[in-house]
């Protein structure tokens, strides 16, 4: 009985097994990358349902209330605070006092129990991000958070991946604003952003901090 397979089949089989492994590995790695960058992993663009459907587009957009009216600590602290219920009641003690939607806010004010707001921008715990220094050096709210004044429910505009941070940390002149425009929504950078950016970097002593320990300490 003659042999079914030619002698070269030995080599072919080895090559095909190895190349199959390589291809599968490559596909696996590609899938891994896709998955790691997807909004499933980064939460980019995912709108959060909140216990009270607070609309930034109404309050910050239509009403024109400054970011800092509620997020008071953003200029002085690492953490930009979620306001206490009392801040809501500054106005809602008189406005929409019978609204069902706001019952949870009133209940929280009466009982002194916190409203369990859902965190939207959640950096890993080994990242030490500081709002105050970014605000002070001319990084606009909008640069990272997007047009909050147009978001009925807030979502994370950017991926918050490390490469995204580094994009600015390595070349801040691409994004920095004059200090007076930091809290502006809908700011249009001038055409000579890179020229102005370079000037601002110099004037405001903006450092290009890309050491590991800048953020991981």
């Amino acid at each position, binding site marked *: 009985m003659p042999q079914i397979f030619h002698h070269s089949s030995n080599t072919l089989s080895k090559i095909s097994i190895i190349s199959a492994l390589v291809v599968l590995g490559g596909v696996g790695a590609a899938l891994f990358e896709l998955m790691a960058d997807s909004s499933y992993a980064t939460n980019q663009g995912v709108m959060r349902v909140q216990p009270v459907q607070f609309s930034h587009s109404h309050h910050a957009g239509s009403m024109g209330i400054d970011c800092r*009216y509620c997020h008071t600590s953003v200029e002085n602290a690492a953490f930009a605070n979620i306001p206490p219920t009392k801040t809501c009641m500054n106005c809602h003690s008189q406005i929409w006092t019978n609204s069902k939607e706001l019952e949870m806010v009133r209940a929280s004010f009466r009982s002194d129990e916190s409203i369990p707001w859902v965190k939207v921008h959640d950096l890993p*715990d080994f990242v030490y991000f500081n709002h105050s220094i970014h605000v002070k050096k001319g990084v606009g709210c909008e640069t990272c958070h997007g047009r909050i004044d147009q978001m009925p429910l807030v979502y994370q505009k950017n991926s918050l991946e490390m490469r995204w941070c580094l994009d600015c940390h390595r070349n801040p002149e691409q994004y920095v604003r004059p200090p007076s425009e930091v809290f502006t929504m809908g700011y249009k950078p001038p055409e000579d952003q890179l020229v102005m950016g370079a000037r601002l970097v110099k004037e405001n002593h903006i450092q290009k901090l890309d050491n590991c320990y800048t953020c991981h300490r």
Partner: protein
Amino acid sequence: MALQDFWSLWIPTRWLKLPTNFWSKPILAFGFAAILTGCRQDMHDQPKYKPLRHSDFFEDGRTSRPLLAGTVARGEMHDDVAFFTGKNGKDDIDVFPIAIDKTVIERGHQRFDIYCSPCHGRLGNGLGMIVRRGFKQPPSYHIDRLRQAPVGHFYDVITNGYGAMYNYAAQIAPRDRWAIISYIRALQYSQNANVGELPPGMKAQLPSMDKVAPPSAVSSPEIKGSSEQPNIPKGTPATPMGEAK
């Protein structure tokens, strides 16, 4: 959502409805072990307290703890009574406890626009956006009672609230409160300056006295219940001082 479930993240078990251990073996065999074991979220979500994070340990569920009674932080002794209460004994002080210069007024301008203008309006006439949406209208700053009110009165209102206005003690630091009051004074002056006291250069910029519109045309639209409108003297610039834009 916390990405705690390592398998559900990397393998579409949910869609395929397969038990994880069915997939885990072949994948490990393909040499992903090294990559995948690096993908747990334990370091992303460490069991430590960060600002406003939920706590399972404390009864109220809060990580941030209230200060114990009698706690005084460094630099928070508040022994400068006039500065921290705006009062001298029982009376409101009428002299600023801090030096006022242009920087302070500009800081006050900025803080006023953030915290006060939603109700009081950028001109201080009490017609802010929130008032237009139904909040009780506060009095205009440009009435005699408030023109003559001592600065300590404004400080007391910001610190402790007044009428429908809640206090702003948690939102505005004491020094900023004084800065805001200095800006309120500038606003008041902007609507009540004596033409005779203007420096000659500024006087020359004023429109001729004959062409000045009557005050009713200049003042803001009236909202129900507002009887006291800013009394704008003839020839006074309508823009508040310090609003250099």
